[in-house]
């Protein structure tokens, strides 16, 4: 048994008050969960503390929330570990996920993970007491808050799920017995079937923070469940739809947040990347987002140059060519002009650190033979494609990566 302080972001819609923080002292075994802690507070101190929960075992997906700023399931987070994490954050002076004085606007989306800032200096528990760092608990991000930790998943998460036509579309009559399919194909999509629709990935998604219309990690993982299903007959139509949507598969920025957040190892970002590869394989390469072009341009550039020439990548993404450094095609020039405001902003905010970086082809060389090495890695990866799927491989530390092909590496050395 140990004592913990839960610092809970509360919002009582009928009180007429803005959201506020409230601390609860709870007393339980460190191996129990943050949800157990919340339920103890609810049982002992305040029955009005609202949190959706049911199975307590990370199966039902009800208790998505943010613990110390990270989107997760309350039942899957051990309270002892959450406490240690809170202490580490306090020592390292990591700003808490949200300022204590910051207010939710009732009915509006809760700020996502990116809106850090503020301090908890007004919290009485913090002053000098090293062990007393509270576990900070908030509702999920990217969704409107209804009450305390309860968010409106219908208007966000479920609407997006329905967007991807989430049911099997086979053609023709069903066979008399089962569909005969490759055994590996079922295991492959079982990874996305493992999704419990908890919304943790949606809560953590940085792209969705920038573009609330982004279909998002959960719904796209659901889409892969059908695209990867050999029984589904509308694979190409699905991919065309998701590639052409301006908020579709190319809206993901590879930030890995959803992979970190997912409590079930679904790895939504991996599923999105599979959708992109499937789109390329199905010849869906004419999307108005230039997503397919961007992917192809990036791959070619790494293959050829062994480094990313960002300015050239912009040009190439608008119109593939890679003909010459300063000979962009007409389409590329048009695209580049359209990108100018973004480029200017990048310079202004320091994202593009030197103006020379915005000129295609003037990207500085990497030191030593680094670019050659990257090219060698690229060739190796091309020749040894490995689909990473936890259901096939398992999280087995005994699993040995295949040895790199030595002759391949020597050639380039």
């Amino acid at each position, binding site marked *: 048994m140990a004592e913990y302080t839960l610092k809970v972001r509360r919002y009582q819609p009928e009180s007429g008050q803005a959201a506020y923080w409230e601390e609860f002292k709870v007393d339980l075994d460190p*191996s129990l969960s943050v949800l157990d802690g919340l339920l103890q507070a609810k049982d002992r101190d305040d029955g009005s503390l609202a949190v959706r929960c049911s199975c307590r*075992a990370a199966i039902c*997906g009800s208790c998505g929330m943010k613990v110390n700023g990270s989107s997760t399931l309350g039942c899957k987070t051990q309270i002892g570990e959450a406490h240690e994490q809170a202490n580490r954050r306090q020592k390292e002076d990591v700003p808490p996920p949200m300022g204590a004085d910051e207010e939710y606007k009732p009915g509006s989306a809760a700020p996502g993970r990116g809106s850090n800032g503020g301090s908890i200096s007004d919290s009485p528990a913090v002053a000098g007491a090293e062990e007393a760092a509270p576990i900070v608990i908030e509702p999920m991000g990217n969704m409107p808050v209804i009450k305390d930790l309860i968010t409106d998943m*219908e208007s966000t998460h479920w609407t997006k799920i*329905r967007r991807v036509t989430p*049911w099997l579309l086979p053609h023709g009559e069903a066979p008399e017995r089962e569909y005969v399919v*490759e*055994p590996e194909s079922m295991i492959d999509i079982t990874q996305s079937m493992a999704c419990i629709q908890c919304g943790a990935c949606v809560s953590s998604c940085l792209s969705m923070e920038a573009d609330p219309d982004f279909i998002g990690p959960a719904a796209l993982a659901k889409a892969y469940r059908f695209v990867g299903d050999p029984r589904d007959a509308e694979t190409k139509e699905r991919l065309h739809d998701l590639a052409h949507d301006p908020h579709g598969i190319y809206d993901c920025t590879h930030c890995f947040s959803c992979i970190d957040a997912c409590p079930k190892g679904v790895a939504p970002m991996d599923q999105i990347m599979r959708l992109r590869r499937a789109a390329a394989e199905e010849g869906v390469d004419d999307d108005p987002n230039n997503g397919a072009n961007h992917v192809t341009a990036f791959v070619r550039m790494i293959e050829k140059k062994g480094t990313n020439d960002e300015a050239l990548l912009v040009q190439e993404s608008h119109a593939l060519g890679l003909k010459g450094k300063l000979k962009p095609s007409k389409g590329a020039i048009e695209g580049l002009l359209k990108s100018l405001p973004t480029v200017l902003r990048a310079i202004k905010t320091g994202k593009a650190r030197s103006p020379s970086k915005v000129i295609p082809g003037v990207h500085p060389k990497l030191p030593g033979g680094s670019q050659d090495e990257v090219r060698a890695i690229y060739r190796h990866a091309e020749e040894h494609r490995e689909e990473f799927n936890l259901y096939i491989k398992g999280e087995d530390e005994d699993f040995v990566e295949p040895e790199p092909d030595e002759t391949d590496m020597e050639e380039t050395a």
Partner: protein
Amino acid sequence: MPKHDVLVIGAGLAGQRAALAAAEQGVSVGILSKVHPVRSHSNAAQGGINAALNPGDSWESHAFDTVKGSDYLGDQDAISIMCEEAPEEILHLEHLGVTFHRNEEGRLGTRAFGGASAARTYYVADITGQAIMHVLYEQLMKHSEQVARYEEWFCTALALDEEGECRGVVTRNVADGSMELFEAKAVILACGGNGQVWKPTTNALICTGDGIAMAYRVGAKLMDMEMIQYHPTTLAGKGFLITEGARGEGAHLLNAKGERFMERYAPNKMELASRDVVSRAEQTEIDEGRGFPDGTVALDITVVPKKRVHEALREIVLVGRDFAGVDITREPIHIKPGNHYTMGGVKTDVDGRTDVPGLYAAGETACVSVHGGNRLGANSLLDTLIFGRRSGVDAAARAKRGEGSRPSREALEAEQAQIDAIAAREKGSGRRVSEIKLELGTTMDAKVAVFRDEAGIAEALETVRRLKQEAESAYVDDKGRIFNQDLLAAIELGYMLDNAECTCVAALERKESRGAQYRTDFPERNDEEWLKHIDLQLADDGPEISYSEVTITQWEPEERRY
């Protein structure tokens, strides 16, 4: 007032299957659930679903295993229907998109399960219930024009007409606290079991026996309420489930001396004897001092090849890691028997019809009875789907037959008054709901569990009746309308207490040992006097006992050996 031909209460597997089946008959369907459908507890069924679909297997063999597993208390006509229709149902699910495990030829593959004479369990890794339920929910989204979904609506009572026919339900919209009377020509209860009456339990917090209690309160008969399954492999303390699939894949049970103790209890089937047998064996080892100091025995999964564990038992790798801090691929995990399943429930015929006209029940809420004294692993998903579908079809047919009268609005007014009264209780007027719930759970787990006797059950019954009194003045903190979970918990507590009372009364009545009911004061099965169901019906001062015959078609009772 929302109105549908068929109204389904509960949206787990039984409810969703019933709704889809009714919609297929062309009637208007509403499905209503106190949580979002995909949060339903069917999710937790890990291991699989039984069907005699392999060449060389037969539905009769499946049925016999089920009859024997039930300790001959199951009704053989219902069991035959379930087992005969099972293969078709599996294929239907496969066609809808369930990602069942395949064998090397790309056809449906099976695993072994407890109490079964053949490997006939179809599965999706160890997320079978979840995988099937999410696929059914896909179908509900697809058929949204035929099936209206009411997600996060809580039922407080069934509404009857003047002739005593069920014509609707009174509900509270959880999101805003408004009360509604839903009108229907047939109502199907598919609200799951009552595991929360025990603590610990493998069951979710939502499994509070709502459907069983609501049916009981309007006069429907309950049956086999004493039959409560304790699952052999649950995590000590927290009650989380470790699938029987682990033993199906070859895992061993060991006592603290490292002995594979099942040799002494079930020399042929060993770890794969039926659940009541394995749970009693474990409890005996623990009680006689051969368990671990934390009151457990060990499940050794390290004997199963690692790749197979990761492929087929991944969920319990996570459960071990996240909830017990144990890497099950490297060391045994401590387990004990824990509350798991309600074999009894609302008495129905093979089409889900209860004693109240217009009222149906399916899944764990119902007692058809296909599980009798003990349910076999991987038969519960099958039960939900077969009898969910049959209820949906029959309810649709009933709805098509006629208009009937309308429910009285008095039910709505009475429920509103009841809720207002709960909210009006002042702080300090009584105990907290959570305290009463805790006392109920620990009492039932101590007295009405694997081993029972008259004194213990009587003591539990006395406690339950006192708690019923106390519950009437239990207060709630939350006085609001929006997501007032505190208030709903008070209503659920009432449901749980009704369930508990019925279980105690039936357990006290059955003076023999059969299936999950093991009476240390009557340790033998007694077919002469007790090969019959105990039925309970609400009377003035609690449940009134009557008996009904067990239907025996082709399998005469014999001694059970594994």
